[in-house]
């Protein structure tokens, strides 16, 4: 990780090559627990993006004064500050979503993606790069949350975007799609085992895609050699 990493490279790493949810497998507890509907996943994803960007910026800005011996407690303090702010914001403006997310909103403080980025990237990089990195990893994590939430909601309840009014206000009430009306759905997908199976399916799909791309690359290279 050099200083010359372009923003595009940082973005691509966070979203795909080092995706926290699918490759690093960090922050699995909130990822598995809250992804039972698309809206819940989106809500927690947005909160995580906010916290990870703010933390990365502040850690990067203070990196000169953060001595190695006490850097971790300071990281945790910074993260806890932002998580508390986000939680209070959420309680003030999206109270129903706050109820739906429950304990997992304050638990963002233990999300190791955030501590991991602060330690591995933000504490050694410029502020702008740290912001880009936070955005990339936050978006990557949120994308997995949304994909898994959508998948589980679709299979488990046969709907999409149910409860959108929690996040978007009364406008969102009409957004929820009943794709398979009146079906109970495969309840297993909405329950905890469904989270593990669903995440495994997403990881397998990503691996398959990566491998196919690598094979295609190898074929092209071999063709170019011959």
């Amino acid at each position: 990780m050099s200083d010359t990493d372009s923003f595009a490279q940082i973005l691509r790493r966070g979203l795909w090559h080092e995706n926290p949810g699918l490759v690093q497998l960090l922050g699995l507890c909130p990822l598995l627990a809250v992804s039972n509907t698309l809206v819940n996943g989106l809500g927690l994803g947005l909160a995580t993006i906010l916290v990870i960007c703010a933390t990365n910026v502040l850690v990067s800005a203070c990196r000169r004064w953060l001595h190695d011996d006490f850097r971790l407690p300071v990281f945790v303090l910074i993260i806890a500050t932002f998580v508390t702010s986000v939680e209070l914001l959420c309680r003030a403006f999206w109270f129903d979503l706050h109820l739906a997310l429950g304990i997992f909103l304050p638990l963002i403080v233990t999300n190791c993606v955030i501590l991991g980025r602060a330690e591995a990237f933000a504490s050694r990089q410029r502020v702008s790069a740290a912001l880009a990195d936070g955005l990339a990893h936050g978006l990557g994590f949120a994308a997995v949350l949304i994909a898994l939430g959508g998948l589980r909601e679709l299979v488990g309840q046969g709907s999409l975007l149910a409860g959108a009014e929690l996040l978007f206000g009364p406008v969102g009430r009409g957004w929820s799609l009943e794709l398979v009306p009146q079906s109970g759905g495969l309840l297993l997908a909405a329950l905890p085992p469904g989270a593990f199976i669903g995440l495994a399916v997403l990881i397998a799909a990503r691996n398959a895609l990566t491998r196919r791309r690598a094979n295609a690359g190898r074929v092209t290279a071999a063709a170019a050699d011959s």
Partner: protein
Amino acid sequence: MPLTTGSAPFWRTPDTVPVIMRHVLYALVPAIIASVWFFGIGIVYNLIVAVVTALVTEAIALRLRGRPAGPGLADYSAIVTAVLLAMCLPPLTAWWVTATGACFAVAVAKHLYGGLGFNLFNPAMAGYVAVLVSFPDALSGWPAPNIGDLDAPIPGSGATLWFTLTGQLPGDLSLDAITRATPLDTVKTELGMMRTMDEIGTNPLFGDFGGRGWEWIANFVALGGGWLLIRRIIRWQTPVAMLVTLAGMAAVGYLFDPARLPGPGFHLFSSGTMLCAFFIATDPVTGAATNRGKLIVGAAIGALTYVIRTWGSYADGIAFAVLLVNMAVPLIDRYTRPRVYGRPPRSQQ
């Protein structure tokens, strides 16, 4: 002149996978006939749906994995999984419920783990649990047993077929009129209503030990299991350990509190205890490989079954107990490995 020597094994038993699986199927025939006698033709429809789904899923999974489909389909393992699953499901089950279970069992529990021989969890039980968790309402279609003095009519083969295909009964038949709670469900709900076991036992659904009809099916399952024991397809350790542990715990509980805890006879002859002891816990892949391990696995399944039945929220805990113990089997096998001949015991190494 080159003298070639093949590598071991030099002496093979005739018991290949298809042979063993076929014997398991033969051993289940008496129990299936008894089920049809007591609960109607529904189980046959379940069997057909489950077997067809399992075979189709097996073929697709093998194809996706780039394996030849022929040997995989011909080894009967998918059929055994499907049959065991179908025997756990109530006779009145809509086809999509059965098909979901069979598909989950073969695709997720078996092939995602690497296929026959690599699956950590018993496929039939994993499929059953997937259905139990996904469709909690769909698994109550047990007709009243065909005993004679119970007023509920057993649905005919046409009505059952209609239910299997559509999930609804034809005409004016209502599900409530022909189905009855299983003995385990009855005990669970009535104990919840502060009735004592003596009062519950006067319910016409109960026979000498377990539910009427159920206890006879259990006998025929045990008959098939005994034949497997004689043929040495399964070993005695797992079933005996499971039944003894379950009966022992039930006996202790019964002595302490006969009003609230059913006795050993009820636990052994209700629901799928016998099926689990002889056909599910003894699965050569997901059960223990060592003899001491088989004893531990059987005892653990028996104990967990009693605990879940008595204090859990589900009426029957066999499937959960089997899956929980399946997870521990690799560890159990590791610690019960027999001493290698000619070497000192592991404690002295």
